[in-house]
């Protein structure tokens, strides 16, 4: 500036006051936001990561999660399908029965498709013999219905004088499923035995009480996680790749030849993504509520709170996108860095797996990722009916990440 001399202009223009500041940026902001929004709605990648992928994921896992726990039992051919055991099992909705030859069922058991294989054979019981048990090899309960010659007391069709040997084969390969199957079958066998013995008032009764609660299904875990996932995708993938393309194609340079401030460009890019995220959250939540029984603790209020927290999360996540966008000028070099930021969060951030399923040493990392905070806040709001104040620590966590990333972005951002 020191070399600069004052212009000696022969025309009277020399007296004009200088205008140091940029003109009003409102029209530029609106035009840029609109352009960026329209361009994004035409981008397939955005459509895929923002809407399609989360919706498909929710559809697949939302439907999968609704059945609760099932016990899958195979009944080998030749089993007595008139036996009280078999009939009792067919009436329990939590039991899935399948049929086949003993050898094919055993193969299914080995491969984990079944939890246990049953064979039920009628064995004649000599008159006068009381309920007894034979214990075959693999922990198999045997049913001995009430002593023969006491028709009416047991009340089983064709049960008189007939006992049943039930063999349950399980595999030690999945001890949990084996235990569940055994407990289940044992319970049914005991019940049948008790009734066969003519006991109508058992000495010990078990009453279970159902407290009025709601059914927490997998969708309640999956949907907030997918919201977080798609917000992070839009904020980081969308921003980083969007900016770099605009850099490479000299769009920014051309805009800098107009009276538009760089800040206006950044704000407009953010605003257009906010609009997309707004639509995204509404689509995912509405689809979740109407098609997959997603639970909103306080209905519309919860809906609004989730929307608000989502947009807050998006604004914070944009910081990451801007860091990457500001430091790269072509997509190929940027790709690995984007993955480095997003992949750990997708894996550890609780979108797909709950963070408490990770090893202890990993949990401090997993629990403090920005995506974890967002997912956690969204789940607490949706399922527990938490208020914004209740999730203040999560919001603060998101804010802290936002402040740090924006500071880095501002310090390192390069337009060319």
């Amino acid at each position, binding site marked *: *500036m020191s*070399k*600069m*001399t004052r*212009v000696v*202009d*022969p*025309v009277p*223009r*020399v007296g*004009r006051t*200088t*205008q140091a*500041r*940029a*003109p*009003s940026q409102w*029209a*530029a902001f*609106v*035009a*840029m936001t*609109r*352009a*960026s929004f*329209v*361009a994004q709605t*035409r*981008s397939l990648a955005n459509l895929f990561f923002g809407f399609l992928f989360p919706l498909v994921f929710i559809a697949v896992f939302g439907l999968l999660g609704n059945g609760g726990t099932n016990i899958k039992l195979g009944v080998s051919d030749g089993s007595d399908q008139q036996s009280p055991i078999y009939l009792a099992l067919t009436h329990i909705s939590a039991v899935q029965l399948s049929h086949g030859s003993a050898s094919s069922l055993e193969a299914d058991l080995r491969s984990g498709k079944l939890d246990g294989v049953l064979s039920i054979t009628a064995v004649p019981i000599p008159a006068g013999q009381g309920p007894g048990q034979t214990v075959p090899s693999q922990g198999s309960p045997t049913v001995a219905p009430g002593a023969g010659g006491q028709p009416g007391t047991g009340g089983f069709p064709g049960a008189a004088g007939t006992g049943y040997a039930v063999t349950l084969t399980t595999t030690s390969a999945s001890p949990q499923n084996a235990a569940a199957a055994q407990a289940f079958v044992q319970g049914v066998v005991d019940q049948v035995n008790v009734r066969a013995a003519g006991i109508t008032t058992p000495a010990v009764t078990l009453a279970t009480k159902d407290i009025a609660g709601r059914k927490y299904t997998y969708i309640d875990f999956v949907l907030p996680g997918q919201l977080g996932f798609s917000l992070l995708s839009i904020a980081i993938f969308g921003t980083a790749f969007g900016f770099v*393309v*605009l850099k490479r*194609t*000299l*769009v920014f*340079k*051309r*805009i*800098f*030849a*107009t*009276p*538009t401030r760089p800040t206006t460009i950044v704000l407009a890019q953010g605003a257009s993504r906010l609009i997309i995220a707004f639509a995204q959250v509404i689509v995912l939540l509405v689809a979740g509520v109407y098609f997959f029984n997603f639970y909103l603790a306080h209905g519309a209020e919860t809906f609004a709170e989730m929307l608000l927290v989502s947009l807050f999360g998006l604004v914070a996540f944009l910081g990451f996108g801007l860091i990457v966008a500001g430091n790269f000028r072509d997509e190929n070099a940027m790709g690995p860095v984007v993955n480095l930021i997003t992949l750990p969060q997708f894996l550890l951030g609780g979108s797909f797996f709950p963070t408490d399923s990770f090893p202890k040493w990993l949990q401090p990392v997993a629990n403090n990722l920005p995506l974890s905070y967002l997912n956690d806040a969204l789940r607490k709001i949706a399922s527990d009916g938490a208020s914004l104040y209740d999730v203040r620590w999560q919001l603060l966590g998101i804010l802290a990440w936002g402040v740090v990333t924006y500071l880095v972005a501002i310090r390192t951002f390069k337009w060319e």
Partner: protein
Amino acid sequence: MAIIEVRELVKRYGSLTAVNGVSFEVNEGEIFGIVGPNGAGKTTTLEIIETLKQPTSGQVVIDGFDARRDPWRVKRLIGVQLQAAGFYPGLTLRELLQLFAGLYDVKVDPMAMLRKVQLEDKARTRFEKLSGGQKQRFSIASTLVNRPRVIFLDEPSTGLDPQARFNLWELVREIRSEGVTVVLTTHYMEEAEQLSDRVAIMDEGRIVASGTPGELIDRLLAKGFQKPQVVRPASLEDVFLDLTGKELRDE
């Protein structure tokens, strides 16, 4: 009178001096050509005038406003066409013009602007889908959004076939006839000679000669220069245009 005054412009990148003391003036209403080989500093000089780059030293005054002190005013006075596209990907021509209208905070009639460059039927087409000539015509239309006093065209006819180039010249002359000053760079001497009122020849960051094409040719001839071969009264380009016609055919 001069609408652009460039004084002792210098731009250094480390040890490389891209622009080395360039001074010239552009008169209002003229077409001013800057010619020179690649790397001569043409684009850098233009970008400094366009407020896109800061000079290491020197001064640019456009219509009385200093480009460094008053960049916002200068930006309003000028229209800029970059060497490469610079258009928001995924948008149609109409949407692009509306975007520029917003960026300049002015109202435009996009269809009228497209009609002027014979692209009315492409209003709903994306820029990426245009032919080379159409891209350049749209690009020039986009420089007129803010009704500038001066437009800068950086190698506007590079890569165009003779018909498209001829059509582009017509467009540039038409814009000038409406009172807009045009500054353009080119590799093609024929273009500079046909189109420019005055020409500056740049080499290695300096202006080595300037004047009207006629003056520059006379100066050379005065030094006793003679073309080695006999000049025929027609060129191969004349043959080409005679056979293929001058109408535009890039649609």
